[in-house]
């Protein structure tokens, strides 16, 4: 499977977890540029995270995204729409803004917000927006061969991510990614 290199936009919830991960620079093996909005930058305070973000901005791996009034207005409407759909968790303005930008500019949206993950399925007009969590980024890194896969322990990177961030992947998701990695990287050997 090939994963086209492309642009992404990250929300704060994704970025602050990802920044704690020991292999955080893997993100830039998958995406040419990851945009962060000004509102995301305002939520970052720790020296280690600021230092990582500043260095990646300097290397043009991360880039500042200044949202437009139209994108903000679309995001506000999306927040209202999400409140009218009873079976999805509500979407707040920061994630809604990422979805709005993702839809308009065809960027992959990086978020852990469950409402935002469900939006393409339930909100009209957002079906084509691609939303990834850390899980999909890690899986992509495996499928395109950006990480060494130990076929005796194909979930090593996922386990390390959980340890570094106290972010727990569901057993069902881990089983599914294990099968995909084994099929793609182990059975060919």
């Amino acid at each position: 499977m090939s994963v086209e290199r492309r642009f992404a936009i990250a929300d704060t919830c994704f970025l602050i977890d990802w920044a704690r991960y020991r292999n955080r620079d893997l993100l830039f093996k998958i995406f040419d540029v990851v945009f962060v909005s000004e509102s995301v930058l305002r939520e970052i305070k720790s020296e280690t995270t600021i230092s990582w973000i500043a260095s990646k901005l300097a290397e043009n791996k991360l880039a500042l995204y200044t949202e437009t009034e139209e994108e903000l207005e679309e995001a506000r409407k999306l927040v209202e729409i999400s409140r009218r759909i009873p079976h999805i968790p509500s979407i707040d303005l920061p994630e809604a803004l990422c979805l709005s930008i993702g839809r308009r500019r065809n960027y992959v949206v990086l978020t852990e917000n469950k409402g935002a993950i469900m939006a393409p399925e339930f909100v009209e007009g957002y079906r084509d927006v691609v939303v990834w969590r850390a899980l999909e980024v890690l899986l992509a890194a495996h499928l395109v061969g950006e990480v060494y896969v130990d076929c005796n322990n194909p979930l090593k990177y996922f386990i390390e991510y959980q340890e570094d961030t106290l972010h727990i992947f569901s057993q069902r998701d881990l089983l599914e990614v294990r099968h995909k990695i084994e099929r793609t990287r182990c059975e060919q050997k």
Partner: protein
Amino acid sequence: MRAKISSRDVEEARRIRREMADWEYINKQPPRIREALKYYIETGDLYVASRIAEVCIEEFNDLRIRARIPNVG
């Protein structure tokens, strides 16, 4: 490739957050932090929880980790 979750996943995530949380730590916190942590356990919404706690999202994420509340994804 796309992320996909269901309403059942949302319920399961809530159950895991409730079970793994360090309730002794949470109940010792000042009221605003305590209620924000409880809100996060129920909703998984880091942004609103950080606003309840009156801290930035990254600072709230540190509180979440100290309270042993997993981000279930």
